[in-house]
């Protein structure tokens, strides 16, 4: 028996003259004026490849990174495929066409040749940048018990806690280092979850990826600390194409957090990352993202185009992968962290908060592909739209023919703040096994004038009321984040919403 429900659509778009205006909307504009806190440019000489993309560019990048022949071949194959593709246009996004020949595909701080051996040798200005970002490498990382592998533009500049991790047998390094030091692992797993021909942006990334993180957790090891990477795009007109690969062997556990910030620039910058996770038997990977790329200004000028392919493969029985994301930045977010539930009894989870303010657009969600028996997935998505923001949830739950007793629960809530924003839900459900149980719940609410007034009447200021209501709305997702990042995420949301209601 085949049950197939495709593309249930549910949209609420509030335009001028739309449904009931909310009290306080006049102040919507007032709130937004607060500038982007991470908008500074670090004045470090960087070395970039000239704009444009052809075989020569790929060869240049690969040679510069001293890569083995097989990897160059892999890149070139991806490039060849990419050159035949067209940009996808199915997402609910409006964007000016990207000129892929106008982008520089590699940028590294100039000191690359004699890379710092320790943090002491790192350009103090760079460290200052991290300070401004709130990521002082030495102190905060140590205090928080977090190992940070910071990616500054395209080259990883400093890694902490390596020793402690090495003692546990965990490999945590930049992708480039992994290519040099653990080529057999990279070769075995690279592209095994997201093939280079997966989609337009994955193919592009495969051809030109610059750096990223690599994690390998051996059998039976519980990674002793949260692993964390801060990505940051600095140089103007460069794309950042990082590539992350996490492998959790049988019975292992790892929790990984990435945070992203980009400086303020008028032009749009492209970010097309690929993240691959492999969880073998009984292994668990928790992957958390706090994304705060520059969202553009209040008129929609500038901002990051964030086109990311993230996918986890629950390859082993009883394995488990969970994605938690807090997306407050970027002019455009296009990302669907997904789980392939291949192993029997494997579990996939997706917790998401996506906030769009001003002219930001987000088309995000997940795919849960049930292949094994008794697989379970859970999707909790919270979309918040303010200003002229457009927020779409797009999710696929697919139950294959052999996936007996698959279970999915999806909860998809949208919150609208103001009258010019929109929330859209595009759930796709494909079920090919009659024993499957798939539940989908969706709500759309407006930050109610009644909720706001209730808080005001009790003496709470409007600003505090809004952040309280939004925080409550996102609670289910925040509690999946490691404690210190939950605090950060909450603060980030507050900053992003400042001025959204007034």
């Amino acid at each position, binding site marked *: 028996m085949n049950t197939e429900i495709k593309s249930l659509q549910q949209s609420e778009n509030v335009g001028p003259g739309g449904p009931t205006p909310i009290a306080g909307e006049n102040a919507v504009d007032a709130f937004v004026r607060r500038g982007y806190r991470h908008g500074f440019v670090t004045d470090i000489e960087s070395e970039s490849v000239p704009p444009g993309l052809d075989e020569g560019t790929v060869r240049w990048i690969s040679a510069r990174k001293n890569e083995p022949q097989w990897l160059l071949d892999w890149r070139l194959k991806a490039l060849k495929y990419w050159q035949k593709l067209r940009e996808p246009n199915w997402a609910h996004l409006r964007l000016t066409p990207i000129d892929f020949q106008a982008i520089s595909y590699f940028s590294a701080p100039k000191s690359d040749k004699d890379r710092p051996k320790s943090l002491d040798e790192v350009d103090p200005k760079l460290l200052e940048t991290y300070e401004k970002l709130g990521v002082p490498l030495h102190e905060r990382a140590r205090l928080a018990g977090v190992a940070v592998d910071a990616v500054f533009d395209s080259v990883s500049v400093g890694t902490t806690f390596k020793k402690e991790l090495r003692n546990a047998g965990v490999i945590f390094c930049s992708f480039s280092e992994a290519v040099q030091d653990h080529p057999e692992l990279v070769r075995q797993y690279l592209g095994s979850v997201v093939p280079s021909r997966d989609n337009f942006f994955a193919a592009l990334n495969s051809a030109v990826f610059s750096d990223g993180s690599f994690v390998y957790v051996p059998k039976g090891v519980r990674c002793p600390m949260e692993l964390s990477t801060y990505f940051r795009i600095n140089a103007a007109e460069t794309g950042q194409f990082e590539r992350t690969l996490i492998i959790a062997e049988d019975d292992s556990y790892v929790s990984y957090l990435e945070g992203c910030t980009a400086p303020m620039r008028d032009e749009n910058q492209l970010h097309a990352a690929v993240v691959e996770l492999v969880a073998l038997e009984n292994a668990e990977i928790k992957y958390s993202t706090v994304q705060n790329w520059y969202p553009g200004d209040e008129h929609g000028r500038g901002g990051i185009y964030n086109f990311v392919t993230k996918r986890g493969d629950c390859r082993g029985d009883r394995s488990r992968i969970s994605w938690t994301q807090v997306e407050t930045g970027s002019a455009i977010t296009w990302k669907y962290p997904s789980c392939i539930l291949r192993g029997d009894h494997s579990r996939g989870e997706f917790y998401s908060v996506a906030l769009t303010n001003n002219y930001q657009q987000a088309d995000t969600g997940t795919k849960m592909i049930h292949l094994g028996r008794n697989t379970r997935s859970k999707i909790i998505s919270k979309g918040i739209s303010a200003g002229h923001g457009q927020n779409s949830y797009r999710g696929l739950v697919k139950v294959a023919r052999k996936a007996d007793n698959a279970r999915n629960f999806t909860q998809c809530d949208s919150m609208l703040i103001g009258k010019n924003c929109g929330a859209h839900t595009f759930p796709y459900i494909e079920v090919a096994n009659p024993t499957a149980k798939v539940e989908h719940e969706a709500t759309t609410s407006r930050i109610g004038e009644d909720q706001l*007034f209730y808080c005001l*009447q009790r003496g709470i200021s409007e600003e505090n009321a809004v952040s309280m209501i939004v925080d409550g*709305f996102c609670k289910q997702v925040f509690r999946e984040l490691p404690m210190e990042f939950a605090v950060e995420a909450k603060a980030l949301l507050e900053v992003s919403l400042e001025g959204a209601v007034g």
Partner: protein
Amino acid sequence: MSRLQIKNLHATVDGKPILKGVNLEIESGKVHALMGPNGSGKSTLAYVVAGREGYEVTDGSVEFDGKDLLGLAPEERAHAGVFMAFQYPVEIPGVNNTYFLRAALNAQRKSRGEPELDSMQFLKLVREKLEVLHIEDDLLHRAVNEGFSGGEKKRNEIFQMAVLEPRLAILDETDSGLDIDALKLVADGVNRLRGDDRSMLIITHYQRLLDHIVPDAVHVLADGKIVASGDASLARKLEDQGYTWLEEGGIQPVKERAEEAAAG
């Protein structure tokens, strides 16, 4: 001096006149009841006093302890001591009730120049209040009104009132949707919160709440004006004869009286 003095209050909602010259005075420490048929403007009066957006005052004045209340933002009115118990208390999913109430109390304390309470001090205060009101403390651990029964929501309002200790409490149809047991519990809570320095305006459609909370005065609002005022017996009369007798001229309208008072 009156705690609350409303003079010739006119207000519109979406341009439609709802209040058409309300005069009302409540002395410090007194409990007044405001009754009237549906659509007479009872809740509108409550919202206007509390400062809800969308309720536009076109004429008249509202003074609180001699100060102009209409010039204040809603949260400033709360800081001044105005509290409104909602007819439909609002759910705020994911926001803990205790957290919410502490934020409210501390905002009010801060505005008065008093030190904020830390969570231990606050918890102590809250436990005292719960005990006095005979309310279960599981209320503290839940999200604001989320999944509460009608009775729980109303009790939560009274509990908030107990913690915030307002100088003027407006209870907007607090009895609506309650069975008799829940009604008694709520009324009992209100009675415990009566005090010399707390005035109350109890808005109700039915007299039955006033069996449990005996008011010092009763007013009848019809078509945006106070058409009758009297003591607690007026409420019983309304109960016996319904609101229609007002329109049939069965009672002498107090309009003139109120206007005289306003003029004097």
